C-alpha cells in the first residue's frame, strides 16, 4: 500500500495504480478523453493533467503511477486553466453545430464545455475541413467533428483487431481515416460500430434509416411490421434514464404500435427458428461427414469479417440466415399467405442493437424474388429518436404483448443477445435432437460470461461435442488459424463480433459506464429464467409453422427461405 495526498485528502492506493485511479477511489473526478479502461494509457489528450508537488510540469494522471508521499492537486487554478485551454482549442476546431447534432446532450466535448464553464470564443481561427464518409450502408464518419482522442482507432486496432482506421497526416492536418482515405466500404471495416460506442462526439455515427421507415408508416398501402431483437429490450430504457438492465419489452411494443406499425413481432421467434435450423444443420454435418467445425451465422459482423479475411473457410459457417432475416422471410411468405397479403406491400422494420444489420439487410443474397427479407433496420438509438419526435413519453407507456403468431418465443431465444447465448440455446435443442432426451439443467453456465474464448464439452449419447464461444471478433483469429492448420478440436463455434455480444452492439445506447455489459446480460438471463418454455423446440407457434408450411427443418422450402450463401469479399476488395 502506498500513501499519498490528493487535494489534501489522505489516500491509500495500491502499487501500480495510476493517479487517475487513486483519485477515483476517493470520489475525485478527473476528466478524461483519450483514456480507455484496461488499455495501455496513451496520454494523448492531456485533459487529465494534475499538479504534483516538486514536479515542474503538469502530468497526465491517466498514465502516471502513484508514488509514496506524493502530494497532488487535481483542481488547482493552474490545472483548471490548462484543461480549459485544451477544451477551448478543441471546440474552436469543431463545427459547433450542437443544436442539430445527433449527439446533442450526449457528447463528451459538450459536457466538458459545460463543466469548465466556457462562455466565450477565445481562439477563433481556421477549422479543419474534411468530407463526410457516407460510403458504407451502416455508418458515417464525420472527421470535422473528430477531436482526435484516438479511442475509435484503439478500439478498432487493439480490441476488435481489425485496423480499418488510423491516424494519418500530422499537426493541423491530422485525421483519423481509412487507408488512402477511400471510405469505409472499401476498407477492412466490418461495420461493427464499436467505434461509435466510444466516440466522444458525433464523428462516428450510424447511417440513419429513419426516413425510409417514416415514409413507409405514412404510406397507407404499406402493411408495416416491426420486429425487435433480443438485446434491444434490455438496453433501450437506458436512453430514458432507467437503470441499466431494465427489461422494457412491453413498453417498446406499445411505442411501436403508437408509431403506427400494423403488427409488432419478435425477432426471438426468428431466433427459435434459427436454432431449429442450425441445430439440424449441425447434426447433419456431424453425422454425414460435413465440414466441421461449424460456425454460427447470426452475427453479420463476423460474417463480413470471414468473407473479407478468410474466404477459404466460408464452408465452415452455417448457411442459416440470421434471426431477423429469417423472421422477415417468414413474414413475407408464410404470414403473408396466411393473412392474404401481397408480400410486395409488406414493409418489415428490424429494431436492432447493431449497425452491421443495416449492411446485412441490403445483401442481395437475403431477398426472395427481389423482395428483401427486411426492408429497413433501425438501431436502438434511432428508435428512441422516432419515439421522441412522435411525442411518446416512454416511461409512462403501458405494457403490451407481441402479436401472434410470430411473436411467441422461448427463453433460449432471449439469450441470443449475449455472448454464449446462441451456443447455449443451440445446445439445449441439439442435445434433445441427438439423444431424444431433454437436458436436465438448461443453465449452461460454462458458455456464459465475458472471457475472450469460452470452451465447453458436452456428452451426448456417448459422443463428446466440443464447443467454443468467441466473445469479440478480436479473439477469433487464433481459432481460425487452428482450423487452417487442421488442428481444431471443436465441433461447433459461436462468434459474436462485439465484446459481450449484441447487448454491447454498435447500435446500442452510448455511455461509458463499465458495468453496462454485465447488467444488460443479466437482464436477458432473467427473461430466460422466467420463461415457461426455455428450449426453442418447445415453441408452439414454431411447431405450427413447420406443420403448416415448412415441413421439416432443413427441408427444401427451409433452404429456399431460411438459408443463404456467402461471398468472397477479399477478392472483391482486391479488385477495387
Amino acid at each position, binding site marked *: 500500500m502506498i500513501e499519498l495526498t490528493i487535494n489534501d485528502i489522505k489516500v491509500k492506493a495500491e502499487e501500480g495504480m495510476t493517479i487517475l485511479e487513486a483519485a477515483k477511489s476517493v470520489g475525485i473526478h478527473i476528466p478524461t478523453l483519450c483514456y480507455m479502461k484496461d488499455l495501455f494509457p496513451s496520454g494523448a489528450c492531456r485533459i487529465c493533467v494534475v499538479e504534483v508537488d516538486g514536479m515542474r510540469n503538469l502530468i497526465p494522471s491517466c498514465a502516471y503511477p502513484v508514488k509514496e508521499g506524493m502530494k497532488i492537486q487535481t483542481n488547482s487554478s493552474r490545472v483548471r486553466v490548462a484543461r480549459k485551454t485544451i477544451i477551448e482549442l478543441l471546440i474552436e476546431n469543431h463545427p459547433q453545430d450542437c443544436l442539430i447534432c445527433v449527439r446533442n446532450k450526449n457528447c463528451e466535448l459538450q459536457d466538458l464545455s459545460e463543466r469548465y464553464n466556457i462562455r466565450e470564443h477565445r481562439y477563433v481561427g481556421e477549422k479543419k475541413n474534411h468530407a463526410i464518409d457516407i460510403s458504407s450502408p451502416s455508418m458515417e464518419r464525420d472527421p470535422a467533428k473528430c477531436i482526435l482522442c484516438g479511442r475509435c482507432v484503439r478500439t478498432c*486496432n487493439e480490441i476488435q483487431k*481489425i*485496423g*480499418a*482506421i*488510423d*491516424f*494519418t*497526416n*500530422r499537426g493541423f492536418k491530422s485525421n483519423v*481515416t*481509412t*487507408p*488512402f482515405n477511400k471510405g469505409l466500404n472499401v*476498407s*477492412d471495416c466490418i461495420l461493427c460500430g464499436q467505434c461509435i460506442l466510444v466516440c466522444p462526439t458525433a464523428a462516428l455515427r450510424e447511417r440513419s434509416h429513419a426516413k425510409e421507415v417514416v415514409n413507409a408508416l405514412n404510406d397507407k398501402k404499406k402493411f408495416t411490421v416491426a420486429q425487435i431483437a433480443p438485446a434491444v429490450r434490455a438496453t433501450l430504457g437506458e436512453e430514458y434514464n432507467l437503470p441499466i438492465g431494465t427489461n422494457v419489452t412491453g413498453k417498446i411494443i406499445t411505442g411501436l404500435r403508437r408509431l403506427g406499425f400494423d403488427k409488432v413481432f419478435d425477432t426471438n421467434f426468428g431466433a427459435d427458428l434459427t436454432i431449429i435450423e442450425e441445430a439440424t444443420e449441425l447434426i447433419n454435418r456431424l453425422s454425414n461427414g460435413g465440414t466441421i467445425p461449424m460456425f454460427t451465422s447470426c452475427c453479420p459482423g463476423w460474417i463480413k469479417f470471414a468473407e473479407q479475411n478468410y474466404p477459404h473457410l466460408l464452408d465452415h459457417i452455417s448457411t442459416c440466415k440470421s434471426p431477423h432475416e429469417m423472421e422477415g422471410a417468414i413474414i413475407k411468405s408464410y404470414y403473408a399467405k396466411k393473412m392474404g397479403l401481397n408480400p410486395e406491400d409488406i414493409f418489415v422494420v428490424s429494431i436492432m442493437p447493431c449497425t452491421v444489420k443495416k449492411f446485412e439487410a441490403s445483401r442481395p443474397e437475403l431477398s426472395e424474388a427481389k423482395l428483401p427479407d427486411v426492408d429497413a433496420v433501425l438501431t436502438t438509438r434511432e428508435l428512441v429518436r422516432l419515439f421522441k419526435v412522435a411525442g411518446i413519453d416512454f416511461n409512462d407507456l403501458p405494457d403490451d404483448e407481441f402479436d401472434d403468431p410470430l411473436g411467441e418465443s422461448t427463453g433460449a431465444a432471449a439469450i441470443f443477445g449475449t455472448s454464449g447465448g446462441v451456443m447455449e440455446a443451440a445446445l439445449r435443442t441439439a442435445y434433445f435432437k441427438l439423444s431424444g432426451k431433454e437436458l436436465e439443467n438448461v443453465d449452461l453456465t460454462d458458455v456464459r460470461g465475458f472471457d475472450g474464448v469460452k470452451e465447453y464439452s458436452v456428452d451426448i449419447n456417448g459422443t463428446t461435442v466440443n464447443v467454443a464461444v468467441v466473445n469479440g471478433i478480436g479473439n477469433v483469429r487464433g481459432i481460425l488459424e487452428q482450423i487452417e492448420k487442421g488442428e481444431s478440436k471443436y465441433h461447433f463455434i459461436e462468434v459474436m463480433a462485439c465484446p459481450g455480444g449484441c447487448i454491447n452492439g454498435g447500435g446500442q445506447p452510448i455511455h461509458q459506464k463499465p458495468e453496462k455489459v454485465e447488467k444488460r446480460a443479466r437482464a436477458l438471463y432473467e427473461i430466460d429464467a422466467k420463461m415457461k418454455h426455455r428450449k426453442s423446440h418447445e415453441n408452439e407457434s414454431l411447431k405450427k409453422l413447420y406443420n403448416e408450411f415448412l415441413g421439416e427443418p432443413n427441408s427444401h422450402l427451409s433452404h429456399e427461405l431460411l438459408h443463404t450463401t456467402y461471398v468472397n469479399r477479399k477478392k472483391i476488395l482486391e479488385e477495387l
Partner: protein
Amino acid sequence: MEGNIFQKYPKNDRSNLIAMLQDLQEVYGYLPEEEIRKVADHIGMSVSGVYGVATFYNQFRLTPLGKNIIRVCRGTACHVKNSANILTALENELGICAGQTTRDKLFTLETVACMGACSIAPVININDDYYGRVTVKEIPKILNKYKKQEQAVSIE
C-alpha cells in the same frame, strides 16, 4: 529490384517499416498503393497503420513525382521578401497547389523551409538550377524553359 526489398526485411517485424518505405520510394519515386498494401501484409500491420506512417512523414510521397521538381523557399528571409507571392504565382501558373503534380506530370511543386541562400531571397529551385531574387513576372519565362526542354525531347 522491388522484390529484393521484401526479401531484405524479415516478415512480421514492424521495426523495419520506415526503412522499407524509404527503399520502395527509392525504386518508384513514390509509394504506390499496391506496395503499401504489400508492406502491411509483410510486416503484419494494418494497411491503415502503414498508410498513417506514410502520411505522417514529409519524406514520403503518395503520388508520383513530376519530371521537374520546383521547390519554393518559404524560410524566414524569403518570406520577408514575399515568397508567398512567388508560390501563389507558381500555383496559378501550373494550376496546382503546393505538394501536387501537374496532370501532364511535368512539374511537381513543393515548399521547403530554407535553402541556405538567404542573400538572394526569394529563391526557387528547379531540379539542379537555382533562381535568386525571383519576381512574379519572371515565373512564366522560367517555366517555359522546362516546357521547351520537354518539347525538344519529344521531337527527338
